């Protein structure tokens, strides 16, 4: 009996959507809700990894990621590099969702929204023509805006969400014009190439929040709860990075334009220089989170500029999930508590978790961040040692800022004991996070999904 060959594309798009719908029925049990969401994300990642080299044979059904699916005249198909990066995106989201399950709920529809955003972004990374990918990003942005809002109320509570929605919408005509120009003039030359490349860079800059004066990153970091910021860092930034890498991978004229590479590398350097100058002076976790996001945006631009569109980029996205899950949990649990001697005190464990998160993000040796930064530095050495120094300085500036913010919180003696359940949960999260961050730091190979770069 012959097996039925089906494309992996609809499964990867539908799995998060179905899980998102199911979480609505589990709202009474936050652990089950978060667990199901994390499981769906992990399953999608596993499917993409297992079926990477050969179609997955399930007896009656064979799931083939390279098999195209035609829907209303559009094609849904996974390219090899995109499949790896999409797997990393799902794998990176799973720990954030798992951690979120242990924390107070972030908005009524947090899990369905995260899964909806993932599904729409997954569609954007598979669909052809590329313009329809940009439209899928716009749909994802609508979900993401509500996710960023996270049920907060008040006059300025929507600033980050509106900014992100506007940025994603502004990017749409840029992509439209760039793709349309490329389609009309197959052999792009001269002005047409420059214009198309500039439009693509602008569009991606808007999606990544890398455009000065109208970036959505700091507004989101300032207003949204920490675990939501972490989710945005992993899902939204990760997907924007994946989109940029996909364009870089499939558009030969974009890749071969000398100006594009230069602009990407220069933008990354400028962003890192900004982090070096600004991060150390911050004494607010929200602003430090914004600096952390900018550090990652710089890394995303750099990885495209140096052509790291495969395993290395996937590794950085998956690792970002672990680091931001720890960071988000630490900052989320860092609640001011009444001190026995009067005033306000902070528990030590979440503070420790936040500091370790920032150190991992900065690339401290022994943590997973070190492997990520090492790959980045290695790629940078080819174009000069200055960039490697700049990345290291940006990380150091971030850690210095975190230490300056943490020190005043350590001045008072430990606060009166929190409720036993909360204390146990905090210690468990800290323990698991340290084990994972250090464990994958020492043995990072599983996060390369079997494609360790030479």
């Amino acid at each position, binding site marked *: 009996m012959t097996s039925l060959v089906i494309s992996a594309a609809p499964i990867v798009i539908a799995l998060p959507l179905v899980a998102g719908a199911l979480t609505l029925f589990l709202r009474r049990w936050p652990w089950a809700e978060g667990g199901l969401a994390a499981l769906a994300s992990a399953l999608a990642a596993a499917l993409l990894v297992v079926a990477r080299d050969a179609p997955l044979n399930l007896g009656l059904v064979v799931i083939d990621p390279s098999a195209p699916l035609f829907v209303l005249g559009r094609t849904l198909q996974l390219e090899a590099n995109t499949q790896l990066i999409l797997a990393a995106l799902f794998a990176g989201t799973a720990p954030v969702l798992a951690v979120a399950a242990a924390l107070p709920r972030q908005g009524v529809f947090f899990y369905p929204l995260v899964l909806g955003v993932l599904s729409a972004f997954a569609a954007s990374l598979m669909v052809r023509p590329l313009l329809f990918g940009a439209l899928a990003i716009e749909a994802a942005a609508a979900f993401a805006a509500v996710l960023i809002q996270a049920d907060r109320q*008040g006059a300025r509570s929507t600033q980050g*969400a509106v900014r992100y929605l*506007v940025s994603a919408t502004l990017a*749409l*005509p840029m992509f439209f014009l760039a793709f349309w120009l490329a389609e*009309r003039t197959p052999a792009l030359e001269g002005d047409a190439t420059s214009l198309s490349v500039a439009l693509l860079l602008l569009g991606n800059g808007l999606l990544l929040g890398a455009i000065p004066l109208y970036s959505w990153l700091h507004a989101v970091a300032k207003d949204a709860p920490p675990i939501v910021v972490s989710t945005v860092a992993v899902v939204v930034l990760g997907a924007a990075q994946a989109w940029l890498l996909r364009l870089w991978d499939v558009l030969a004229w974009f890749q071969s334009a000398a100006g594009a590479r230069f602009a990407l590398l220069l933008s990354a350097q400028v962003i890192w220089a900004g982090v070096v100058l600004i991060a150390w002076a911050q004494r607010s976790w929200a602003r430090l989170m914004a600096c952390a996001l900018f550090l990652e945006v710089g890394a995303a631009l750099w990885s495209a500029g140096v052509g790291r569109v495969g395993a290395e980029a996937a590794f950085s996205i998956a690792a970002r999930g672990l680091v931001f899950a720890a960071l988000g949990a630490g900052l989320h649990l860092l*609640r001011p508590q009444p001190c026995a001697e009067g005033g306000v005190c902070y528990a030590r464990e979440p503070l420790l978790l936040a500091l370790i998160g920032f150190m991992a993000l900065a690339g401290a040796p022994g943590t997973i961040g070190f492997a990520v930064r090492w790959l980045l530095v290695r790629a940078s050495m080819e174009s000069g040692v200055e960039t490697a120094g700049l990345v290291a300085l940006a990380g150091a500036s971030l850690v210095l800022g975190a230490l300056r913010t943490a020190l005043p*919180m350590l001045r008072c003696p430990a606060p009166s004991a929190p409720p036993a359940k909360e204390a146990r949960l905090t210690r468990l999260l800290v323990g698991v996070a340290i084990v994972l961050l250090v464990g994958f730091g020492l043995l990072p190979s599983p996060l390369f999904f079997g494609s360790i770069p030479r």
Partner: protein
Amino acid sequence: MSELIRLLERLSQLAVVPLLAVLALAVLAVAVVHNWRIALPAMVVHYVAVAALLVRVIDPAVVLIELVAGIVTCIALIVASVGADNLQRAVGVPSAAERLQQPNWVQVPAQLTLRATAAVIVGAAMTGMAGRFPLPGVPLVFVLSAYLLFGVGLLVIVTSFEALNGGLGVLLMLSAFAVAYIPLEPSVSVGVLLGAITLLVGIAVAFLVLAEGGREEAAHAPLAERSESRA
């Protein structure tokens, strides 16, 4: 349904200039008056004008989907705005109707003049751009409408910080995209997809409008801000 389609077809038989004039006036109202009681009906008029334009190049049934999506979006925004108004009235902020009945004569003339001047400048610039940088393959009337919608959408976004006006700017830009792209690919799937995206964005904006209208609660304030103020 067939009556509506026939109506759209009749509208599309109007001369181009009156259609463009209606579209320009509607988007001008959205740009100048930041009060939902005027801006949202103007948005409905803009969706009708856009549908009347699109019906020239695409199946009227598909345009109807676009139009219905736009109108449903406006209804969702009206419901959200009424809800936000009620929430704000409870804390002493005048509602949209009260602001229309008793305008603040100190601020309103300056704001209206500034926005109207900016809208006229943007309109003139966009008209010039439509002639200077046409989109090959797209009829001039569509190019002009797309540029106008995009420019005014951008203007609405930069002159406001509220979720509703920001959202209206986003919806105008989506309309601009539809007007520019549908003549290039007049297919059912494109029309349906754009309609669905308009609806999704509209619902997201309605959610944000309601959230913005609510009272800020200390318990919901982000932790980082609290720690910042106490550290």
